């Protein structure tokens, strides 16, 4: 039997008390696409960083083609034919594609022969794998999807036989994902081996030949993809069965609670990003706003929550006008009127990560009873409140005095949600509620949002995850290039149809 191209034996890795990888065994066969799936913090990225030489294992063996090797740095890995495409690209923005790829491998002081050879080799690689990259374009001019291809090309040029991709689709549009998958399949056809780290089950089912599941630092299962299904994988990941489809009743809608008329908004560079948008959300209704990142959703949410100035148009809350381009309420006044906002980017906007958890649990409500009285914070009441709310929303660990950056992404999100939902708002604006959140917490967050809806809140859900929009919303609007390009009842729409709207095709 041929030995697997990459084999891990009893890999262990600890960070202080945290045992990130426990006795990991893994065999990856040549010419396959191998998926590694697990929740955030399951140890996937740690394991792959060991394979790429970024970390050293405490114990265990790494074999390539049956031969044991010692990886002390990424350089060793590259020599052994291992390449990695990181979540955050490692490219110099103002260099061209070519300059980025040869960086560190220039091989000559004055560019000449070697550069010409590199150009030729790269052109061949591009043709073989249909990468379709112009070597002379500057990175900053390229879309995210193309930058990722540059990373892939870089690894191939350095002789990668095994290509590790860490959550490659997180930043891509559905169309870009399709393109990426095409490239990965053609790589496989040419005999390359691909390791795909992801927490998206659908990608595993679509693309991989074999899949390994990790949970809490352990490898809990290996299987051929054709022998499994999404439900089974989800159960292995979480360790219990998970509702992938939400149980929810039809909504009982009432009066219009939130209305946006002819709204236009400019961004910081004075470019109009939201163009004459009209929206209506009723009591007891979730309106899903779908769209590819960067089509004006961020500016829309900021304008609706009072953070960004309205250029033209009007916003009504519960029948009263709250904002137009002359007068607008600031976020605090809007909060008092019953509008809560879970921002898209929790670390940039929703939290002060250096604050203690209890300080973030009152953030934005800190000047209200019972948290403060004549400008003095009432520490004891705040702590009592925090303990109660952390228990209610299952924030772990349940320690109000812990600095917020020490919580996992999912728990940070729960801190924000608990803070905003606890006030029982009439209108709730939610941006990307489950971005970077693990499956168990996603389920919890979705259930809370449905509960809020059933209690009569009007909810605007902005998300780039189509699955999320489809499983939560009652009505869906699609935003493209700052405009609302379509509105559908959730019952009679398919993700294909939405995908076309999102791409601005229809």
């Amino acid at each position, binding site marked *: 039997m041929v030995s697997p191209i990459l084999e891990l034996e009893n890999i262990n890795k*600890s*960070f*202080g*008390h*945290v045992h990130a990888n426990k006795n990991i065994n893994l065999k990856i066969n040549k010419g396959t696409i191998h998926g590694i799936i697990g929740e955030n913090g399951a140890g996937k990225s740690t394991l792959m960083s060991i394979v790429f030489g970024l970390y050293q294992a405490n114990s265990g063996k790494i074999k390539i083609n049956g031969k044991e090797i010692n990886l002390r740095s990424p350089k060793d890995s590259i020599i052994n034919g291992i390449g990695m495409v990181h979540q955050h690209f490692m490219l110099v923005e103002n260099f061209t594609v070519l300059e980025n790829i040869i960086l560190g491998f220039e091989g000559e002081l004055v560019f000449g022969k070697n550069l010409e050879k590199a150009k030729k080799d790269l052109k061949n690689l591009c043709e073989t794998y249909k990468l379709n990259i112009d070597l002379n374009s500057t990175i900053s001019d390229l879309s995210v999807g193309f930058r990722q291809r540059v990373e892939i090309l870089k690894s191939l040029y350095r002789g990668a036989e095994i290509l590790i991709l860490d959550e490659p689709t997180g930043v891509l549009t559905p169309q870009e994902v399709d393109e990426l998958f095409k490239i990965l399949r053609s790589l496989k056809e040419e005999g390359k081996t691909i390791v795909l780290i992801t927490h998206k089950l659908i990608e595993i089912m679509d693309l991989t030949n074999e899949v390994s599941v990790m949970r809490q630092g352990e490898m809990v299962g290996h299987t051929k993809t054709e022998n499994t299904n999404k439900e089974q994988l989800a159960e292995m990941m979480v360790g219990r069965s998970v509702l992938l489809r939400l149980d929810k009743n039809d909504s009982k809608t009432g009066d219009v609670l939130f209305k946006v008329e002819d709204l236009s908004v400019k961004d910081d560079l004075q470019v109009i990003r939201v163009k004459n948008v009209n929206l209506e959300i009723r009591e007891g209704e979730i309106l899903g706003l779908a769209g590819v990142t960067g089509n004006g959703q961020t500016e829309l949410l900021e304008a609706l*929550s*009072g*953070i960004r100035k309205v250029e033209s148009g009007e916003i009504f809350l519960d029948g009263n006008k709250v904002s137009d381009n002359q007068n607008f309420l*600031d*976020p*605090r*006044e*809007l*909060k008092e009127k019953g509008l809560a*906002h879970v*921002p898209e980017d929790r670390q*940039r*906007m*929703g*939290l*002060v*990560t*250096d*604050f203690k958890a209890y*300080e973030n649990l009152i*953030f*934005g409500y*800190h*000047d209200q009873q019972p948290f*403060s009285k004549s*400008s*003095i*914070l009432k*520490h004891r009441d705040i702590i009592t409140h925090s303990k109660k709310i952390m228990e209610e929303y299952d924030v772990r660990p349940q320690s109000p005095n*812990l*600095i917020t950056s*020490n919580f996992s992404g999912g728990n940070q999100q729960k801190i924000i949600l608990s803070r905003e939902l606890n006030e029982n708002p009439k209108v709730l604006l939610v941006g990307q509620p489950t971005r970077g959140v693990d499956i168990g917490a996603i389920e919890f967050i979705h259930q809370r949002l449905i509960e809020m809806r059933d209690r009569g809140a009007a909810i605007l859900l902005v998300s780039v995850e189509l699955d999320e929009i489809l499983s939560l919303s009652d009505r869906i609007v699609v935003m493209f290039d700052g405009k609302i390009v379509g509105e559908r009842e959730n019952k009679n729409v398919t993700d294909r149809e939405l995908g076309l709207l999102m791409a601005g095709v229809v």
Partner: protein
Amino acid sequence: MAPVDKSKVPWWVSNLIVPLVNLTLALLVSGLFIFIAGENPYQAVRLIIYGSFGYIEGFAYTLYYTTNFIFTGLAFAVAFHCRLFNIGGEGQAYIGGLGVFLVAVNFSFLPVPMVWLLSIAGAMVFGAAWAFIPAYLQATRGSHVVITTIMFNFIAASLMVFLLVDVIRDTAQMGPHTVALPKEQWFPSFKDFAALFGIKIRYSPLNISFLLAIAASFFVWFLVWKTRWGYEMRAVGHNTQAAIYAGISPYKNIIIAMCISGGLAGLLGVNEILGVHHKIVAGFPAGYGFTGIAVALMGRNHPIGIFPAAFLFGILYQGGSEVTFDMPNITRYMFVAVQGVIILFSGALENLFRPQIESFFVNRLNIKASA
């Protein structure tokens, strides 16, 4: 080396052991300097300790310097919690002194304790006003406070020289200083207190401003951690975007933080005018405003840290001047270098040995816990 899990590090390791190790290293390097200069470092240390603790007047001097460093250290710390690098403490203290003097002179018909309270208020208002202009420019125009406050130090110095030469100079004297305040307005000094208990000591500048410095420390602690104002200032400092999201105005908080900072720096004027000189003399802030930056950074911008840091610098100032008397090869500037080394080790190189020390203690504690 694997990063240490921060939440597992006991507070006393990161807040006591690490600074002490850094300080020890700084002192060892300073000792080397003294050795190179041709003096015995051990002897120098003995002189420093004797000079700052060895006799009562020396100790009083140490506490007098400590008082000034507490004021300027607190001033820097408050602004820093809003991520404003207020290096204008020197100028704010100078103008604060003007406030003290003008109030004391113009309200001299009031009972003395009233004059004192009004003078303290005057110091804070004048200091705050001097900080307000850079704050306003930062908040509305984005002019960086580092640039504007340092320029305001120069403006303050020039303005005061102008006033001391042409406007409020004591015309009976040649020097650039004002007339002295009436004696009953002078702050009771440490010497007066000692005399109450029948102890006769020689002069030292220590006075009841020291108690004001302790009170100011409590005030800053309460303000920053216990009030809505401090909470909002810290929110703006750590994450301006998030503050805007929560309805907290960065504009308002930048101005509030800088004005409180300037007010605290102004209190240095109380110590110097009411407590020591009893008049405005040219250049009385004498660099305390700048040393305050180091004090605040070393004290991790917390009043509990600022006190020992201010005390340490007090020891260095007082003990250092003792050394320069006795050791001909050591000049005043040598102690500026020593200060520099301390700032280098406890500020810039603060994290040099932190990972090693922390993991050492974490591992030790683990062994103990599992044994």
